[in-house]
């Protein structure tokens, strides 16, 4: 089943990061193996005379083109709405896209998004024509505010960036899904294993964005395939409808015509 992001139809529900891979070649192979059509990247200061960033930028462009995909620039490292707005505008010019993964970090220890600065930046960037994919915590009210402002896509975290802790608070994530049935929900950050991604999809999330769990695997290319399979499985399970959980055991084998030695004794 396809995923729709701001009017673009995507064949994969996995959005993938381009950082932390052992080499540009493995990054390219892993992204292609994942089938993802959305690749995140960023802008940073570099020595203008150095040539270090050119090779990786070429790899990312080639990879995205091969998958007929899209670039998703982020505002990683920004700590205020003003910084994030400036970086978003720079990204739009350079990457020729009005998509922006909007990140405004509020705390250095757990890289927790700053919800107040995020809302300020969101409002101003939406007014400027951006299509925003906001990275936020799993706070229902913040997600509702972002949606009310005009974000069609909301990206709550599973757990802090790079921890691999998986879904810290499934109740919150389920609540967001139930309360925002029309929003496109992408689970972003903190995913460690394919089973985490599968659980998110079983909850009814529309997609998963991750980086470290693939890039830091012993075999990133194989892990990319594993995540792709897990996301497909979780999506199918959600569509199929999981059985209700029950408190007591129910035999799955029919009890009618149970052999005589299992019958209660007659008095």
């Amino acid at each position, binding site marked *: 089943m396809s995923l729709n992001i701001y009017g673009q139809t995507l064949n994969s529900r996995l959005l993938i990061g381009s950082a932390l891979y052992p080499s540009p070649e493995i990054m390219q192979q892993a992204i292609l193996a994942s089938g993802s059509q959305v690749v995140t*990247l*960023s802008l940073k*200061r570099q020595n*203008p005379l150095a040539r270090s960033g050119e090779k990786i930028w070429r790899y990312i462009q080639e990879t995205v083109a091969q998958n007929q995909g899209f670039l998703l620039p982020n505002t990683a490292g920004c700590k205020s709405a003003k910084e994030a707005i400036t970086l978003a505008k720079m990204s739009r010019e350079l990457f020729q896209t009005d998509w922006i993964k909007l990140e405004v970090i509020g705390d250095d220890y757990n890289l927790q998004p700053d919800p107040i600065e995020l809302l300020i930046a969101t409002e101003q960037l939406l007014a400027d024509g951006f299509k925003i994919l906001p990275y936020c915590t799993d706070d229902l009210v913040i997600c509702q505010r972002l949606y009310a402002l005009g974000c069609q896509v909301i990206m709550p975290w599973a757990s802090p960036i790079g921890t691999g802790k998986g879904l810290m608070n499934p109740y919150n994530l389920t609540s967001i899904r139930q309360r925002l049935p029309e929003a496109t929900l992408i689970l972003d950050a903190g995913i460690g294993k394919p089973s985490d991604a599968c659980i998110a999809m079983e909850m009814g999330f529309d997609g998963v964005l991750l980086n470290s769990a693939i890039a830091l695997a012993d075999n990133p290319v194989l892990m990319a395939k594993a995540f792709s399979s897990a996301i497909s499985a979780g999506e199918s399970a959600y569509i199929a409808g999981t059985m209700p959980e029950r408190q007591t055991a129910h035999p799955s084998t029919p009890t009618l015509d149970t052999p005589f030695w299992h019958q209660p004794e007659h008095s």
Partner: protein
Amino acid sequence: MKIYINGVILELPNASKQSYIDQVLTNVLPINKQQQSFALALNGEFIGREDYQHTVVKDNDSIDVLFPIVGG
């Protein structure tokens, strides 16, 4: 004129007390780099490429020249 490029002080001895961004870039970027992918902010505000030739840079101004990198 003294300006900051990505946080590093740069003296532009041949520049007047104010120059335009495109003039400053010729001092800090080789010609082949000027054709490459980068985006620019002046004192924390985005400046589009179409404005380089008529945006004034003054003494002590700060320019950020950002390039694509990997990201999550």
